[in-house]
């Protein structure tokens, strides 16, 4: 027996869009130690590029901004 919905269900996107403006913050180390190499590197994450490399992520050690 399903309950009646008393309140409205919500949904909110919490992923920032990948743009020139926020590319660098996304790839910027925050919580990860500075001793970590960033294999993604400035050549791929630079705002000069139109977006972060699709290779950014745990394998490249390119840290998203929430790390």
């Amino acid at each position: 027996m399903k309950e009646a919905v008393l309140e409205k269900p919500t949904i909110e996107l919490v992923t920032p869009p990948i743009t020139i403006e926020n590319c660098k913050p996304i790839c910027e180390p925050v919580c990860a130690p500075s001793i970590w190499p960033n294999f993604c590197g400035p050549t791929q994450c630079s705002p000069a590029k139109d977006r972060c490399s699709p290779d950014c992520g745990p394998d490249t050690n390119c840290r998203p901004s929430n790390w």
Partner: protein
Amino acid sequence: MTERTNHTLAVKTTKVEILSSEERLPIKVKEDVFLVRGAKRGAICDTNAGNVYSINEFAVKVIAGQQDDPEYQAQLQQMGLTNGERPVPQEVKRAEPKLNFVWFEIISDDCNESCAHCYAESMPPSHRKALGIENGDNPQILDPRPKLKVEEWQRLIREAFDLGCRQCQFIGGEPFVYHDGGKRVIDLAAYAKEVGFEFIEIFTNATLLNTGTIQRIKELGVHMAVSLYSSVPDVHNSITHLPRSHQMTTNNLKRLKEAEVPTRVESVLMHANQHTVAQTMIFIDELGFEPHNPDVLRPKGRGDNPEIQPDDEYLVRYGLMLGPNFSAPKRVFERYSSSHSCLAGKITITDRGDILPCIFSRDQVTGNVVKAGSLKAVLEKDPINDIWTTTKDDVLVCQDCEYRYVCFDCRPLSQGANGGREYQRAPYPRCTYNPYEGEWGGGTWKLDENGNPYYDETLKPIIEKVRSDGNLGAQTKGH
């Protein structure tokens, strides 16, 4: 393996909802789209698009099939997040990580600098002598065991490669102080290159480089990582305790730039340099390197000293997660749910042959290559594999958070912030989210004297101030 048990938790003396083992399972709502339940709210992780959505508890019930809301269900279908399939709980399997990165800490004790915050507590031998600490005199301060010889380092480099590792970093102490049998760090880097390593980096203070060394670094294609603590010479030198070190480091950064050596410049935020952070980032930019926020001091080694920690406002501004900002590419979701987001596949080898899960995890020795006879023998044992497969499901508080499979984690930081306790379970200290209330920015998580987590609201006024200034911390810039 670590025993994974449920726990009880009180927040503000009120009992809160703790997820059961079954509730912790992600629910597949469509191919590659998952609902992850938290104690209060939920998250939809679309691993195809990489998007994460925050949903309230009523939405969780609708998606889990416990409530009906045709309008909402149609909205989700229109967004491509569901397709009418019945939601199915997914068993989370632990991964079997392979070695993929090694920090070769070729010189743990010795450095020409004596930084205030050094995790390895390195310093010049002459300083130790002045302090009355000489090799073997005090085993609690200086490890009396013999250091690995250059031939042993070469054997370990070869063995790491044979085990599948292709990325490494040479670190210390100061790696350019290292010498043995006429060999220096650059010779070990050359050996790693010859063996087949694809990414080789040297982490250094860059004070000891000369033209010949830089030329060799360039020829080998070795990457460099350089510590610079401030644009202000006196501030930098007061941290390194080496007169003129700022001048030596910046001069060599310019030479590295001229030689087009791939170099990153890293800084650590602490009380001594907090007032110069902004200008230091500009300075690094003007030197031609990519500036980015400093790494907030981790309480390890000499860094485990409250007097050198940055003031709370700087910690909040540069170190805390003040709002949701997550992404969920498939491999992130898969990796974080099955192994440790940071530690999986990584090790540090110290100059006495100890294997640590990371450079900051000084008290987590998971084996010794000298005793074990080989690197492989250490990596086959449980301790390192147990750490490699620790996930947020094992971490207090995080295990009840809906973002647990898309959020980064640092175990030595969590342990260090909690008095060195609970390496694998201590709550992550830089998150301000309270998953039991579904709210951000009210405080941070700590362990009480009995080892139970509590939401410490000490920083709440500062968090509110930083948020009202429009600076949501380094994590949410550009969001």
